[in-house]
């Protein structure tokens, strides 16, 4: 009997059913889409901040770092020691580790800063470098150097240092907007040979993923295994990144919470308005002798089914919506989480039933009063 009544209630008026479902489905779709988004946003945004470049540096102990332009006797680090320490230290996400060796060589008569490094890794760790030409070539020339010395991709140049000289092909021209525009990048081995400092480097730059405290912890750990050198986070990057990530996360989370709360309330009000319609049915059933608890259970079941069904369909629509949003905003897929499905269904059912709860109060009113229309 209960089931039959319930069936009749649901299907008796298709127009009303459609209206109720539309309200619940739209609310559920937005809620599930936003929840899906919220879980993935952190990761996607952190990836965007990679463009800031390296955030941890390893250098010789402070005070003896950079060479003068006239006298060149910088303090150097052992390349192998540093590489081993990096390999042995645990980190959740090491995006890249790039060694550098600087020397002031001459091209023709002009002194130029030459940086020996791992060219491929350096490009990976600096996504904002704009290269014109063959990025995999023998050298990368900064745009100011190229302009001054009239060098172009697939041109030739000769680096001279302390009597040694190396001819090199120009691979690509670099536009970075910073000091790198004034430097020439060559392979580390070439630079070491030119400077006569085999197996030695001056600075190692790393890009480590994670929040500011995680990066600091990694730097501390690495410093412990390199007691002779100075390991520290790049403050400009980690401080600003931490602050900005926090604010962006807060902004998006607050907006999502706001929309969730208001949408739920809106659906609640709609379901309450729908439930109000059932007043006379309640009065009639009571007049016929039904117990108030059974009657209320019947109507709660009706809205519960409506809420659950709308929530389920809405959640699926929400998955599609979240995928589309992910493509549009991040050009990457948002992986839907299955946990959101039961969460949305339950939430919508609860919201719908909360809307119908006022029907309980009708239990105390005489049926005649209700049937009269008051």
């Amino acid at each position: 009997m209960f089931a039959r009544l319930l069936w009749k209630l649901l299907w008796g008026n298709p127009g009303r059913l459609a209206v109720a479902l539309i309200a619940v489905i739209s609310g559920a779709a937005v809620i599930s889409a936003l929840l899906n988004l919220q879980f993935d946003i952190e990761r996607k945004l952190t990836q965007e901040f990679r463009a800031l470049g390296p955030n941890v540096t390893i250098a010789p102990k402070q005070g003896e770092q950079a060479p003068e332009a006239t006298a060149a006797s910088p303090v150097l680090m052992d390349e192998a020691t540093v590489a081993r320490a990096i390999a042995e230290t645990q980190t959740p996400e090491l995006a890249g580790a790039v060694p550098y060796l600087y020397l002031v060589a001459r091209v023709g008569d002009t002194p130029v800063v030459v940086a020996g490094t791992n060219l491929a890794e350096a490009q990976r760790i600096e996504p904002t470098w704009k290269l014109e030409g063959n990025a995999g070539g023998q050298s990368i020339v900064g745009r100011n150097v190229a302009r001054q010395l009239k060098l172009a991709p697939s041109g030739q140049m000769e680096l001279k240092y302390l009597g040694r000289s190396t001819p090199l092909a120009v691979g690509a021209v670099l536009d970075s907007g910073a000091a790198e525009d004034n430097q020439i990048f060559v392979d580390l081995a070439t630079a070491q040979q030119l400077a006569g400092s085999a197996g030695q480097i001056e600075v190692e730059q790393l890009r480590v993923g994670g929040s500011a405290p995680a990066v600091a912890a990694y730097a501390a750990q690495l410093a412990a295994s390199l007691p002779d050198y100075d390991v520290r986070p790049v403050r400009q990057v980690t401080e600003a990144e931490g602050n900005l990530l926090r604010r962006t996360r807060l902004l998006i989370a607050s907006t999502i919470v706001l929309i969730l709360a208001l949408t739920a309330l809106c659906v609640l009000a709609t379901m309450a308005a729908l439930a109000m319609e059932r007043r006379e049915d309640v009065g009639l059933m009571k007049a016929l002798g039904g117990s108030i608890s059974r009657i209320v259970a019947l109507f709660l079941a009706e809205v519960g089914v409506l809420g659950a069904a709308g929530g389920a369909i809405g959640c699926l629509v929400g998955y599609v919506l979240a995928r589309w949003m992910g493509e549009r905003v991040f050009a990457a897929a948002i992986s839907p989480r299955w946990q959101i499905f039961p969460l949305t269904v339950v939430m919508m059912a609860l919201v719908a039933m909360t809307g119908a709860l006022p029907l309980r109060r009708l239990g105390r009113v005489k049926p005649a009063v209700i049937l009269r229309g008051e």
Partner: protein
Amino acid sequence: MFVRLVSESFVRNPRRKILTGAALALGMAVATATLTVALEVGDRMAREFRSLGANLLVTPESDTLPLEIGGVDYRPVDEGAYLKEAELGKLKTIFWRHNILGFTPFLDVPAVIAGQPTTLIGTWYEHEVPVPDGTKFKTGLSATHPWWNIQGRWFSDGANEAVVGAALAAKNPGIFALGQKISAGRSASASDATSLEVTGIVSTGGAEDNSVLVPLSVAQTLSGHPGQLRQLFVSALTKPADALAERDPHSLTPKEYDRWFCSPYISSISYQIEQVLPGTDVHAIRRVAETEGRVLSRVSTLLWIVTIAALIAAALAVGATAATTVLERRGEIGIMKAIGATNFVVASIFLAEQLMLAMGGSVLGFVLGAGLGRVLGESVFGTPAATHIVLLPVVMGLAAVVAMLGSSLPLWRAAHFNPAPVLRGE
């Protein structure tokens, strides 16, 4: 008669109206709050991003190559080109002058302090730049290098004071202590060495930690280049670059050029600075500018999409409520038709009710949503979001349209059925 019918329906059955009104108000509150946030977020986040520091670098066009390692220029002072300090005020006269938040000049001088060769970096901490229109613009390191921490205090503008880098101070604590006087000259035996008082120790996290920072005027005198500087870092509020910003300005049509010029892209601000400071090369510091552009455009797109999704959901819920109202009053419609009302009269009574409800509900929703938007702005950015009154007519219009659309579907169906079955209760 019409007015009486409509007002009676409000008086007689307030409960249903309140629920409908509540749904409307909440739906419009969602709309207002999300629109308020979406309108402001671009500006607010752009300001937050200035904590990354300068995003533009100005250098002389016909310069020799800077011998720069780790941020310090090791060129001899008599080599290379310089920028003129007197022209810097013109930066605050370009079209986007209000977007120039600050700029800081640098002049590196190799010097000898206490027998050791050190680099002296001349710069501004809080310096007043005279602007051609008569005002003064205060700018300096705090705008372009906000992550530099000072222990003690920064030098006063133009005074014979110095701030020592943390690494240098750690290496020679006796010489570079707070309050000590140091003597800086071009060479070890310079008779015209300047006496500077150490007022602070700065921790930059970069190569400047091995140098001594002094006011620009002191460095200019020491280097023999009065009124000049080597490079200028600029911090500007910009809009993320899109397709228009990437194109060469000379290839744009006049209309496109206007749009590009009047948008604060980093490329248009660079162009305007180059126009006003001839002989300079202005370039975006790509690390900062691109990260800013990427994150800002993604966040902005995300918020707009979320806003539109919420708007659609709110609109659907409101429409559903309006439809319900009509559906449950089929009996009334039946009676009215039975006593001879035309479809038009019935429809207009209901639509008038919905409209009034929509107006009232949307105003309430606007107030609620604006308040929530302010709270959100306050909690995320520290200052409340402004109330955009322009949203009120937008929200009211939206509510009216949605409520009327929602109720017109059942009304249209109601127009086509016989009164008798309805009155019977079917």
